[in-house]
């Protein structure tokens, strides 16, 4: 499996995909919908899928001495690698905002979402949706990328909108906690996001393996 990941990183991936991990830095922008950084990271992954498709990557991979299902797992592994790299950037910056900058006026006077554990959980939820809708959707045909990506964009921005609006709903203010306030709730929300990421990715991968077996290359 590591050989398949190396193949994705060395042959399939575009430099752009690695550069777009840097959009994780958007977590530091004050007064900005910081979840948009997730979208740009997935946009980078989309570009690599596009590049790989144009390079006949699926046929090349299916001819290698690997099971057809391993080709699918390699793609999921690549997507997860980039996502978790982006997540790591966001997690470090979120910790900075939760500790050193928790009282910084630019972040305190912010009508939009705060960088906290709920934010990180939502990041993982959106990555999970990307894996379910886009990566999984790609393997229903093996060539159509546009439709699953558009559906993903709609779903992602609905989540961004809902997450940004949630703390304005009376009684839900705690989701926008600063520092380590409401830590139990924050940890629970993060755990839910992480669990959903794992569940959505696992289910998408299993379904994609089954779908890819039926595809004619």
């Amino acid at each position: 499996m590591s050989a398949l990941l190396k193949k994705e990183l060395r042959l399939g991936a575009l430099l752009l995909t690695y550069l777009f991990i840097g959009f994780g830095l958007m977590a530091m922008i004050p007064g900005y919908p910081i979840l948009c950084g997730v979208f740009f990271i997935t946009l980078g992954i989309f570009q690599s899928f596009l590049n790989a498709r144009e390079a006949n990557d699926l046929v090349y991979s299916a001819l290698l001495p690997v099971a057809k299902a391993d080709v699918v797992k390699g793609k999921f592994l690549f997507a997860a690698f980039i996502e978790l790299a982006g997540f790591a950037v966001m997690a470090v910056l979120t910790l900075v905002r939760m500790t050193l900058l928790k009282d910084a006026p630019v972040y305190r006077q912010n009508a939009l979402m705060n960088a906290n554990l709920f934010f990180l959980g939502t990041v993982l939820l959106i990555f999970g949706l990307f894996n379910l809708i886009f990566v999984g959707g790609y393997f229903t045909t093996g060539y159509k990328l546009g439709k699953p990506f558009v559906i993903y964009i709609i779903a992602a921005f609905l989540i961004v909108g809902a997450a940004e609006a949630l703390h304005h709903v009376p009684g839900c203010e705690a989701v926008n906690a600063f520092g380590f306030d409401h830590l139990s709730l924050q940890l629970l929300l993060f755990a839910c996001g992480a669990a959903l990421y794992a569940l959505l990715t696992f289910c998408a991968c299993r379904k994609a393996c089954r779908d890819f077996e039926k595809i004619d290359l």
Partner: protein
Amino acid sequence: MNIAELQDVCKEYPSFRLNKVSFALEEGKITGFIGRNGAGKTTTIKSMLNLIHTSGGEIRYFGMPLAGHEKEIKQRIGYSTGTVSWYPRKTIREIVAVTKTFYPNWDEEAYRRYLAFFGLDESKKPIELSEGMKVKFNLLLALSHRAEVLILDEPTSGLDPFSRDELLDLFGELKAHGVTILFSTHITSDLEKCADNIVYISKGEIRAFRPREDFMRENGRPGETLEEIFLRLEKEARA
């Protein structure tokens, strides 16, 4: 001994049907696979590589069914086509560096030898290669992991007569070393030079699977070449 066997392989498309295709590849023999465009040669080959989902039948290599033993089998087979190239904007060096990590049997010395034999430059990209050189690049990948079976889909298409002749000589050498070759082509004169067996497919059905001499004796008229036999059989089938 049969290295590969196809038994009643079926595949249905809306406008085409591969109907109970059965034949075998004998160890250390070159099998020519002939048929006109659209007869089902590439569909059969794709079935043999698990690139398409068959609707019936069984494919076995080395006594093992392809289903469930894909990894082991693909370690021992090589594939080359004259039409597709992978990663057109990566250099040959970059593609090979990744490809060889999948093959514990990768033979670096053989790779260097065939690289020189085919006159390929590692710093070139597939997009910079002519159609003939792309064929050679695909063959280079197939030959460098000591494949015991080579499945070649129109490998001589796009090659100049000199390169074709060189390639046929190479197939002869590989055969002498025990390599089994399935060689799909519509350039039947190539098969007259090297094939031991002939598989003839028409409209998705195997019409003949015979040793080449027997095929020519049973289907040909005195003095007819393989190409003339093939053309006449196709005309008779259409009439």
